[in-house]
Every structure is written in C-alpha cells, then in structure tokens.
C-alpha cells in the first residue's frame, strides 16, 4: 500500500477494504509507522569535491574522445582545413617544380629569345 500509486485500480480496491476492516487498518498503520522510522537507515551517500572534480574532467574527456565537444570539433575542423590548404600549396609547388614544367620553362625561354630576335 505504501508504494502503490493511488490512481491504480487495485489500490482503490485495497483502500476500500481497509476502510471497512479494522484489523487490516491497524496492521497498515503499524507498518506505516515502522516504515517511517526505517528512513533513517536508508543512506544517501554524498560525493566529495575530489571525486566531483575527477568526474567532471572524465566527462569532459569522454565528450572530446567521442567528438561531441563542439569547441574541440571546431578546432579539429580548422586544423583539417589548414592542412588541406597547406597540402594544396605543396601540390602547387610540386607541379611548378616538376620536370615537365622545367622543360616548359626552358622551351618558353628559348621561344621568347627567338621571337625577340625575330621582331627586333
């Protein structure tokens, strides 16, 4: 009776019986009284500051490792983009300094000299 929600059908039926039965009513009252006293034996452990701080740090680490921390995600995104831009730059230099391009420069140089002489 102590734990049954009051809107349940079987609670209402039991309550109806208890209201008319003196023995059950007395037994329930005694049990309720006894149960009121046992509350002091039910602990509610308290967290200490060290454990609390430790938990906070751990939760923060979990969020980071699961990529749920938005700040961290933004940082990772920026890093990734910088790397991408950086790799583009390296690619460009590699293309400009490739053998084919050097040959092209040389060819263009020769062509430029010939054309310059021809038009002069």
């Amino acid at each position, binding site marked *: 009776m*102590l*734990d*049954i*929600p009051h809107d349940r059908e079987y609670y209402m039926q039991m309550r109806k019986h208890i209201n008319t039965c003196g023995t059950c009513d007395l037994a329930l009252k005694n*049990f309720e009284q*006894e*149960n009121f*006293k*046992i*509350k002091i*034996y*039910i*602990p*509610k*452990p*308290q*967290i200490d500051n060290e*454990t*609390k701080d*430790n*938990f*906070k740090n*751990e*939760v*923060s680490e*979990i*969020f980071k490792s*699961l990529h*749920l*921390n*938005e*700040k961290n995600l933004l940082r990772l995104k920026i890093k990734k983009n910088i790397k991408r831009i950086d790799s583009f730059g390296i690619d460009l230099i590699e293309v400009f300094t490739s053998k084919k391009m050097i040959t092209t420069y040389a060819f263009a140089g020769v062509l430029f000299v010939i054309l310059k002489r021809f038009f002069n």
Partner: protein
Amino acid sequence: MARSRMNLQGTNDWPLSKKMKSIELQKFIQNISAELYSFAFILIPDDLQASQLMIDSVSVFLIQNKPLVDLWKKSSDVDLVQHSENVKRHLYKAMYELSKKRYNQLRLSFKNMEDSSGFFSLNFDDKAALFLQERTDFPLELIQFILDKTEGEILAHLYSARIFMVNFKNHVSNHNEGLGIG
C-alpha cells in the same frame, strides 16, 4: 545572457530559447554528479568503484544513445526539460545495468560493509528499488524503466526490502535496549 551556461543545476535551470548543445549536455551530466554518485555508491558500496561506475555509465550512455543525443542537439527549445530528464533516466539505467554485472565480481571487497549494515545487506534489487523510492522523487514508472522490471516486481522488491528493514530496525532497538542504550 543573464543566466550563465555554467550554472545549470538540474532540470529546472535549463536555459530557455536555445537548442541543446553538446556543451550543455556535458554540463548537465557534470552537474548531476551528486545524484549519480549516491545511486552508484548504493549499488557498489566502494568509493573508487562507485566513481568508476559513474564514468563508465556516461560512456555507455553516449555510445548507446548516439542517435538520441544527436536528435536532442537538433531539438526545439520546448523539449529541453524533457530531454534532460531523458538523459538522467538513461544514465541511471546504464549505471544499474553495469553495476549488476560488476556486483558479483566485486562483492568480496565490500563483504564487511554488507555484513555490518542493514541497508547494504539487502538483496541487490531490493536495495536499488528502496533507494530510488525513498531517496529520489522518481515515480514508479521511472523506477520500472531503470530496473527494467514490471510494476508487480518493483512492488515485491519494495515490500521485501521494507520488511527486512523493519526487522533490522527492531533488531537494532532490541540490541540497544539489551545494552541499555537509548
């Protein structure tokens, strides 16, 4: 914004008119550490193991409920309170499930505590049910969800826990009377 994000102290203090971001979820979980610790310690009565249980429950919750977490991040303002309640109930559930597996492996290490204390010598499920009923404001449906049991089973656990505790209290009273204390 007048109310700082850092000051979330539970479900009622959720800031309104914005979506739930990961950082808010993180702060919310961090701020309910006291509640989580109480339940963790009841399940595994060891300081270190209880704090480890809390941490593991958060990992399990985030991994198991990734789609839900993503959904909450995209949700509207109105549902924030409900979402925080959902987070809490899933954390409690994860904690209970994890501790149930660990309890028997670790039992020997806290045997002394179980032998000397009335509450801690209760059956595992009885203890969890009685704690949730007496020390939290969870309705019976929520206790059912956390312990994954039917209403009848929960009521049976509560009844058997209460009977045990009443007998324990009477035993302590008789013992004290015998010694001439109180």
